[in-house]
């Protein structure tokens, strides 16, 4: 192992240990874990009842000698929808908090300029912090996925198969990219603000816009969402009528889609939902088709994470080292 890798790993280990010691982070993690666990457990209980009903129907149909039996409409992975939504909202706040704590800790103890005075480059510091945060997120996401899978198997009575396991693993990787992007945002805002707490408020403001406001605007502008029960239904239009009317709204739909595209949260949500069978239209297709269909979302997730990591590297590189000691 060369010197540079060793330094990066030292920083990453320090980041991980410090994060585990933070009470604020532990409280937020506990909220996420409890909310996710309850959401999956409730879904799994309901699923077990539906699965039993389907099994009873299939047994009755087989007993009557029917050869054509309707396939199960149930999708076990879709029960993880709540888990992904909590990662999308609360997970992003945890990531921002981790980024904030990572920088503010060093600022409070005035060790950030000291660190930079060591043979440690800005890139090494940024990479080490990023890897430490990634290790925290991996622990969190893997634990969430494991709780979900075990709950589905034991309570829902339906264990996922290897193909579903692979898709779940890809959704988890997307979650890591998503959380990493917010970690970088929290760290950059804190490092740039005069007072770290103000950096946290600014990062939370951006979170509010990206995670809650932009997707909400996209949903609200949906033509069918204009009336309770659906505008097209209120006008007595069937699916063909709806499609015919929407051909006159291509520009409008483009603007609406553009607003949603600006939200990193929406890209994560689309990809995770496609991988976990949440959207019915994706269920009949295989992995390669799904990856091709969501390539745009994958690209945006990588782009956001990469740009924000470069921003973090640039911000930390610009931190002035202590040359002559003193309190300045």
């Amino acid at each position, binding site marked *: 192992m060369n010197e540079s890798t060793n330094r990066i790993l030292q920083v990453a280990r320090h980041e991980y240990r410090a994060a585990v010691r933070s*009470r*604020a982070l532990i*409280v*937020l993690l506990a*909220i996420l874990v*409890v*909310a996710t666990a*309850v*959401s999956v457990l*409730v879904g799994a*209980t*309901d699923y077990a009842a539906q699965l039993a009903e389907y099994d009873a129907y299939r047994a009755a149909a087989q007993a009557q000698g029917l050869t054509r039996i309707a396939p199960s409409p149930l999708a076990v992975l879709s029960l993880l*929808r*709540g888990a992904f*939504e*909590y990662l*999308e*909202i*609360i997970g992003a*706040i945890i990531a921002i*908090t981790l980024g*904030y*704590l990572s920088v*503010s800790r060093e*600022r*409070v103890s005035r060790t950030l300029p000291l660190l930079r005075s060591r043979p440690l480059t800005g890139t090494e510091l940024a990479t080490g912090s990023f890897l430490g945060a990634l290790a925290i997120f991996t622990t969190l996401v893997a634990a969430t996925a494991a709780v979900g899978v075990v709950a589905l198997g034991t309570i829902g009575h339906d264990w996922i198969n290897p193909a579903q396991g692979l898709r779940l693993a890809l959704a988890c990787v997307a979650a890591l990219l998503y959380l990493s992007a917010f970690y970088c945002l929290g760290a950059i805002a804190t490092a740039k603000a005069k*007072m*770290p*707490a*103000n950096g*946290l*408020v600014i990062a*939370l*403001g951006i979170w*509010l816009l990206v995670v*809650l*406001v932009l*997707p*909400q*605007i996209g*949903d*609200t*502008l949906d*033509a069918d*969402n*204009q*009336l309770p029960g659906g*505008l*097209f239904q*209120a*006008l*007595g*239009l069937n699916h063909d*009528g709806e499609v*015919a*009317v929407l051909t*006159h*709204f291509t520009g*409008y739909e483009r603007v609406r889609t553009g607003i949603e595209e600006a939200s990193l949260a929406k890209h994560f*949500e689309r990809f995770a939902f496609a991988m976990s069978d949440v959207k019915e239209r994706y269920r009949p297709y295989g992995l390669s088709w799904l990856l091709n269909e969501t390539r745009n979302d994958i690209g945006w997730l990588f782009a956001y994470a990469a740009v924000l990591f470069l921003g973090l590297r640039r911000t930390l590189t610009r931190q002035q080292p202590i040359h002559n000691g003193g309190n300045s």
Partner: protein
Amino acid sequence: MIGTIASQQGLLLRRQRVALVGLGTMLAVTAMAGVLGWSSHHTIVRVFDQAVRLQAAAGQPAPPNPFLLKPSLSLLSNMVVYIPLIGALLALVVGHLSMVEDQSKGMGRLLFTRQVTRTQYALGKIVASTRFLAVTLTGCGLVSLVALLVVNRTLSPSDLGRLTGFYVLSWAYLVVFVLVGMLTALLTRRRSLALLSAIGVWLVITFVVPQFTSGLRPTQSLNPLTEPVGTSQAFFRVTQHAQSLSIVEQYKTAAGTILGTSPNSPTTETVLTIVPIVTAGFVLLVLVLWRIQRHDYARSASDE
């Protein structure tokens, strides 16, 4: 003395950029809700025109006028989402700032050498913060009024009353979060921990509790039109008894009734939905007044 502390705190809030940014954000969000409402109106008109042509070409009768199904104040339905999301966060920050500034600058120690009781001090801070929110929401109300006049052309006295009622309800809801921000600042010495704890409370109230009591997924809280969720499971049959404790749901229900965007319910039912919000505010007020008596102002809070 309460008035003096409130005036001084009001001055501080005007000087603090974070609070002013919050005020600007709320006004911008209200204007955005107006634009979205106008867009919704415009979209319905265009879809209706297209539907009429389509039905006429197929030899079918014209569809019913959708505006008969759309309440006159539906333009504000996005505000029912934005107040618990953005407004509540602003209220948390305002409550938080009103307490932590004096702690971190050591003003608390100095202040209590004067003839001012801790109750007067806390009440002065609460008056200033809630007054700041009232000013913010009055601004939002005026923006909404302009948006309604632009889109609907007219506004009946009844609608004006409903608009006022909605913003008074929103103010009461936001006061709860001002008090949460203050209480967390009194419970912890570190600024960041206080703010993050307050945000944790907001997350639980806004996203977690509705999932437990009504089966509402987190992203469903973002849409003004939510489909009813099946809550026939034994779990929800138990938890829905606690629905009245979910103040965000109570707020949305009461706001929908006041604005006329959800089915009309008797006045007594609407009042009952407001009771948990008022009770939460009262309990938090008592907790803040109790906590401030025990707060150790001799120890300066950490700036971080």
